[in-house]
């Protein structure tokens, strides 16, 4: 930011925030927290700027497209190959999202 100056409303707001925002390093480098994926295009819970604004909105519109057997975030959302029942009761994520299960070990 040393050689850049905010010209629009957002740029001026960001200048006012000064320097104590967390820094997310280059793509694929270090995740925000250790439970987050570092795949940032798009990320699951955090985007490459360390924010949520470049994630799918709302996330339910993208959830099935990226969690089927070609799961984009297999550490964070279940793939349907290894977890065939996780969305069995949920035909449309935008409508039935409350029926999405949380997959965890059960015996």
């Amino acid at each position, binding site marked *: 930011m040393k050689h850049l100056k905010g010209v629009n409303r*957002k740029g001026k*707001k*960001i200048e*006012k*925030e000064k320097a*104590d*925002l*967390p820094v997310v390093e280059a*793509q*694929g*480098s*270090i*995740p*925000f*927290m*250790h*439970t*987050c*994926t*570092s*795949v940032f295009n798009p990320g*699951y*819970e*955090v985007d490459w*700027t*360390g*924010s*949520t*604004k470049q*994630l799918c*909105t*709302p*996330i*339910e519109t993208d959830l099935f497209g990226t*969690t089927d*057997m*070609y*799961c*984009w*975030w*297999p*550490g*964070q*959302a*279940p*793939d349907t*190959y*290894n*977890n065939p029942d*996780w969305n069995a009761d949920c035909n449309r994520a*935008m409508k039935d*999202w*409350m029926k*999405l*299960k*949380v*997959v*965890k*070990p059960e*015996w």
Partner: protein
Amino acid sequence: MRKKTGSCFIIALACALAAAWAGSALGETGIPVTSDKVLNMCTDCHKNNRGLVSRISYIRQSPEGWEETLWRHKRVRGLSITKEEKESLIRYFSTYQGLAPAEVAPYAYTLEKRDTKEKVDNQVIVDMCVRCHSYAKTALQRRTPEEWTKLANMHSGVLPMWLYQLQDVLDWDKELATCLAELSKRFPLETPEWKEWISVRPKTVAGKWVVSGYQAGKGSYGGEITLVNTSGDFYTYSGTVEFENGEKQPIEGKATLYGGYAWRASGTLAGKPIREVFHISMDGSTFKGVRFDDPHFELRGVETRAFAGGGPRILSVMPKALKAGTKGATVTIVGTGLSGQASLGDGVTVKKVVSASPTKVVVAVDVSDKAATGYRNAKAGNAAADGLFAVYKAIDYIKVVPSPAMSRTGGLGYAVKQLVQFDAMAFSSGADDIPATADDIEIGRVPAAWGIRELASSNDDHDAEFVGTIDRNGLFTPGNEGPNPKRFMQENNMGDVWITANYAAPGSGKLSARGYLLATIPLYIQRPVQ
């Protein structure tokens, strides 16, 4: 005659094959499975080569790692075993094919479910493993080079998207080979730490243990618990936790001690369900880990437990700092082998010993107006410790802790909300009067007025209105999951905001601080090792 020749040939061939088979078994690096029960359960599918069982004998993992392996077998391979059988398998593997305490210690945060920003010093491992998993998940495994390769092959088979996620990697084969070589070098099957651990196991002593910890939102605490070894690896425990504000809470539960040092317990604290993840030091004298609310793992006490019959040792001093000029303050020293002969360094006068036992000494003290700022050597009988107690002149600044922090939405469907307990931690600038230097003194949590403020990551997103609420004690509760019709494009109740704290410090005026909070979406898969 022809018949006899044929028999000899078959016998000779069988002997040759047996010799070759035995030779390969003896020449391989692997850990033989010695339990008939485990062999019976696993070798219907896994090849048993005189105790060296395919895949299994070439892996070491934490108890949670073995649970994840069995869970995957249940989901994908149709493994059908009872909960008791699963537990007995995990206990066997954790004992004979577990990780040594020194191997677990640097990565225990993921088993303790503590959100941590990791540092990984190898970009190839980041590219191959950390795009989905934590580095800790990788680092809590030990495998032979061949076994690391098989793990990679398994990922390619069951998660083919892996190849696309590495779209920016120019030479996939080369990158994978480099990664596997690095993993084999960093995390081999046999290590000196492991050999030491299997030859001399930590000896955990049943009896009375002293507790010392810190819980965000409540402060420091001490206490005592009594462990009873019910049989083998199983324990029950009960006792009392005493917070620095004087509140006492009963604690009790049941535990399994995996591999002689990995303590996993479930029980209650003041009647509410808790779980515990602790690891015991090689000398068997100290537990380190966390006790957390179930299912809110984010509400936790970070704790040390020391065997009450141990030598002189101070675990903590409460409060950990007093202001110069304080009169009649009560100070509690928690530890083992203590006595009432207490001192807290220059400028601090012990006026009265309120109570004294080998595990807790309570004294009333006066702090001189002219006492120098800085840490003191605290003593209670033969026990002494530096860096646990300080004197300060004034509260110079406060910090919002933790920052950065992360919450997750939930509450309507199956996902449980992930809360954040913030503390406003007071600091003195130390003897040099310059904030944020090495001699600064952490005084402890102070009561602050909390707020949520907009952060300029996007115009007019109004995150602060939707991400959640924060109560008077700094507990942030995120919003519900799912699309929110009140937001532009039905955005979820997620966003990034400032958490602000304001505190009117006596003699220092109004102090303010802010911390970064990422309020995000639920995890829909919760692995034993995340």
